[in-house]
């Protein structure tokens, strides 16, 4: 059973990592506009249709 303490310790550290990543994502504005990027990614980079 003692191994559980170790496992939970690890899982906790990983979870802290995910929490930090989430907080960073919110802070950097990724949740401010949830629509436009979905359209933007579909544009080609060099499109010069006449």
């Amino acid at each position, binding site marked *: 059973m003692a191994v559980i*303490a170790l496992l939970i310790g690890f899982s906790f550290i990983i979870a802290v990592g995910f929490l930090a990543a989430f907080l960073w994502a919110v802070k950097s504005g990724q949740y401010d506009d949830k629509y*436009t990027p979905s359209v933007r990614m579909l544009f080609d980079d060099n499109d010069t249709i006449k």
Partner: protein
Amino acid sequence: MEKSPTLSESKLICFHCGDTVRGERVEQDGKLFCCSGCKIVYEILQQNNLCNYYALQQTPGISPSTIEVSRFSFLDDEKIQQQLLDFTDGKTASVTFSLPAIHCSSCIWLLEQLYRLDSGVIQSRVDYLKKQVFIRFDLSKSSLKNIVVLLSTVGYEPELQLDAVDKKLESEKTRSLYYKIGVAAFCFGNSMLFSFPEYLGVDATESFLRPIFSYLNLLLAIPVFFYCSADYFVSAYGGLQKKIVNIDVPIALGIILLFGRSVYEILTQTGPGFVDSMSGLLMFLLLGRVFQSKTYDRLNFERNYKSYFPLSITVKKNGVETTVPISSLKRGDRIIIRNNEIIPADGMVLRGNAAIDYSFVTGESTPIEKVLGEMIYAGGKQAGGMIELEVTKEVSQSYLTQLWNNFNNSIREKGELSELSNSISKYFTFVVLVVSLGVLLYWLPKDSTTAINAFTGILIVACPCALAISIPFTLGMTLRIFGRNNFYIKNTSVIETLSKIDTIVFDKTGTITHAQQASVEYIGTELTDEERLGTFSLAKNSIHPVSKMIADHCKGEQITVENFSEQISKGISGTINSKIYRLGSQGFAGHGILPKGTVNETRTYLSINGEVKGYFSIKNIYRDGLDAILLSLKKKVQFSVVSGDNESERVRLQSIFPKGTDLQFNQTPIDKLNYVKSLQSQGKKVLMIGDGLNDAGALLQSNLGIAVSENVSQFSPSSDAIIGGDSFRKIAEFIQFASLSMKIIISSFAFAFIYNLFGIYFALQGELTPIMAAILMPASSITIVFFTTISTQLFAKKRGLL
């Protein structure tokens, strides 16, 4: 690339904006345009290899209005720049514009390629849902004015507002909600993990694990209690200070007890605590908040008079014209008002022929003529040539400003908190407190530990999370469904008010009738092509709304008009191909024709060389579906119509509306407000539907004000809700769906109640264990989330709203 509409196609549509091409044809590269404005945009894009714009979406363009660069010269003013720019360091600057014209993916693409049209633009980014563009530009290569002019030239004229609301604060608020959810979810997940050994039973040899896990749990409880729950404590405290027991009071009580008992149990090592239940509860509550907090960023429901006024005005001083911001306008300044400009301050006419269109203030769109020395009130729009005014009152003291302030002062603030949840929570909290105190007193003489356990257990398990979750989820869903149908509401409490409406007051012009359209019919001797074009050219010279409608009706190639003259409220005349055309009232152009029959139409007579040809009959067009709305709401609701116009439509309205409908004509904005007030004093719940211009006061006064707008994104008047003209016919469905949502909420209470009874049964005996709470509380939350979401969707589908 999509096949472009060719000239041979039977339906001719503009390659740029998709409008039907009428009258004059503009062609370029074998493509057809409805006006030269559209063609110019096409040429600009083509020269810069930006024609991908037309490949992404068909006819994505916006027909640009004619742009006078001088109109934007105030943007060179440093004070104005400072207020508009987000940031500047002297070399580069950034600005966020609100562009109501953004409507498709082509718009995003073009606006993000701005640097190809103006080398000064470093970066431009679109926020589609907010209809905003963020632009960073090089001050040495471009200027704010250049960018605004460029945007306007390609059809995206920015909406410039100096006292723009702090949108940044709003985004900070949503962000902090996301942080809280993140923290709560993290703590919920981990504390469940830490609680498992306890729930599954730890054997004696491993008992050293128990304190480790429970202390870790305690550590997780701290951020949940002090950070995630903070809003609930603040709101509950605020409510109690105002002597209101709002929904957050019992929730805050529940959270405090969950935390307190957990801390006690963990520190004394008497139990594992309720940390997992507490974090789970918080996570669901906060998720509900996200659902409810969804608002329409791009719509501004809090308009005031300032947003109708221009930002700056031309002042003439010692013969020199300068542009100054409106706020620095002083008494005695000479200002210049051009055609179609709004008069920002009360003033006296010094020069020019003033014909003021007061439709914004009074609803009457026929221009009123003013002569030299006469007073003009702010809010009117000049229709005609340039005039000069002397400012007699500063902007903040003008008639219109005072009118607005009166409206705003006299109107109580409409509460945001739900009435339903407040009234329930008041009794609920009382009952729960009485029950738990009773149980405490019952157990205390026998067993003090059980007494405390039972007391706290009841308060924990009775925490009205179901109430707090079902309301935001149901109303949030309803708000989304309404939004999809072009019906935008200010906040979710509007839904509750909408479900209780028993009286509907309609404004006439622009609300139940189409604002810009009217049916024009020519009755009389048939006109030859030449005569028709002559009439068109004559009417085109006047800006009177009736002339515009007639011009639209006779549309064609314009011919030169000589000796044009306009007599206000009589008619217009001119010589075309050496024939004298007269268009106007019966006395002006209609001598000898049959006297007016019914009064429910406006007639404009036409005579050529003195011979009366006939008349144009102009009728309001009522919106589609008005009959259906009246029919389906007739039993539940009483109707009234208030109109700023004269009685000419009375007979027609009487035939449309059910018997007993109150019809009021010649109503000023104040009259409309007072009419709504008098209905309310009879205990009626009034829904006012108007166009938000001259009935803004009535919209505010009513229990619920809905503004009908042809173009929701371009104009949002002050109101509780905004509805697109096309969705007007669905109003009955919206009202019925609102009451349905309230029913869904009430039935979800029933579910929650079953769970609660179950929990209370154990809590009464002081046997509510953490594992029970850990199962019961999330289970009840999840059931409610599912029930409300699914039933709302189902009903919306059934009603054809989804």
